[in-house]
């Protein structure tokens, strides 16, 4: 424990707090700006129907029982349908798939006013989400970088 004098215990907090007025704010104005994820960020799951062999391993490993295999019109295999109300985005199904037919996008803004819209059937799961449709006012995308001086955000127009 260090010993500090009277001035540095009473006056220094005031000066230190005042110095923070010179730093840039670290909040950003969502939905006009958005933090993009990193390459490994886990989000919505996308299905590649041509690769899938319908083995059901993803349904076996899912800890939340969110995956069910459903038939699709025009094809003779069953494909996974994910209930995103139960999914906890753990990524075990993506890892266990023997043909790498599932992959994750870094979009997590899945919202709806209807329960049934959030159970994604296999046809819907093949289309990746478009961030511009979910957030129409989006203008910038930020990438965070931690430097020795503080957090910096690199902006890019979208």
């Amino acid at each position: 424990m260090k010993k500090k004098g009277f001035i540095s215990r009473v006056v220094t907090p005031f000066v230190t707090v005042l110095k923070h007025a010179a730093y840039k704010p670290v909040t950003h104005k969502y939905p006009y700006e958005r933090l993009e994820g990193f390459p490994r960020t886990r989000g919505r799951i996308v299905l590649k129907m041509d690769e899938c062999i319908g083995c059901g391993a993803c349904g076996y490993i899912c800890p939340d029982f969110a995956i069910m295999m459903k038939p699709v019109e025009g094809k003779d295999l069953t494909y996974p349908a994910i209930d995103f109300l139960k999914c906890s985005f753990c990524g075990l199904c993506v890892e266990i798939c023997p043909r790498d037919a599932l992959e994750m996008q870094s979009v997590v803004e899945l919202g709806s006013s209807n329960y049934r819209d959030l159970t994604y059937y296999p046809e819907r799961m093949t289309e990746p989400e478009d961030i511009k449709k979910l957030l129409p006012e989006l203008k910038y995308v930020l990438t965070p970088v931690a430097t020795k001086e503080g957090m910096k955000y690199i902006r890019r127009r979208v």
Partner: protein
Amino acid sequence: MIDWLIEFIRVNLDPLFKIIIFPGITFIMLFTIFAVWYQRKFLARLMLRMGPVHAGRVMGWLQLIADSLKLLTKEIIFPAYSYKKLFLLSAITLPVIPAAAIALIPFAPGYAIFNVKGYTGLLFLGIMSLYPIFIVLMGWASNNKFTLIGAFRTIYLDVAGEIPIFLSVLGVFIWAGTYDLQDIVAMQSSMWFVIPQFLGFIVFFISYFAMIEKAPMDIPEAETELVFGYRTEYTGALFLDTMLGDYINILAWSLMMVTLYFGGYNGPAIFPDPLLNGAFWILFKLIILLAITFTVIISYARLRIDQAIRLGWYYLIPLALLNLIITVIIKYVVLGG
């Protein structure tokens, strides 16, 4: 009828202007709204975030108007078994007291709402000492044990804070030789009183936080223990009244600090008109002082009530008395009256 009204306005133009526009009701209300916006933006920058941004497109200046309108449209709830008349009247009277005290402060040479020679300094202190009484009435009229505890803490804090502040102001009165605020400001045109009265200024600054009830001494309103203190049961327009009372109190004491120690409206003449010049300089000093106040609010933890009383009685009162002794010695012995 109309001729009588026009004649009345033409004769009393000067006082009516002062009471209604500047530095009267309109100025106080607008400045309160500005002070809350300023607090939110400035404290947000110290906390590394942005404050209101969206409402009003630039810097969020319409945010406060939106919040005030929202509060005005909400229902006023009277708690069961509360004293309804006292509940209503004490909340309505609360902002009037510091606003009446602002009427005594000179904003330019010879320009104050209540333009009378003599005892305006003492009158200011007398009016401001009524403020805690109404807080206690508000806490008692709510019929809630938590708010009553908060109201009693106001009395404790008042005991700890009012005596040092009166003693330090007494030091200024002795140094200046008069009780009149306009004369005190006029005497500071060469040197501000903060330099000869430095000890008194330190005592004033610390007990100023006890009077405006903000950290480190916001004990009556201790959010982590008593939800909102004496203001817990007020909703809607009455809540707006208590917020107004809080901020007009800050405005009144800050103006007193600027008047007594920092030269009031004195400043280098950058406008030719003395009224405009005085108003500009007093507002400039006020805004810097508010920035310092807000920074102190955020830099220190809240003291316990017994620690605040100990600070007031063991440390501040002896310092203020020491200041008085030094002032009397320097003024009457060294400088010869």
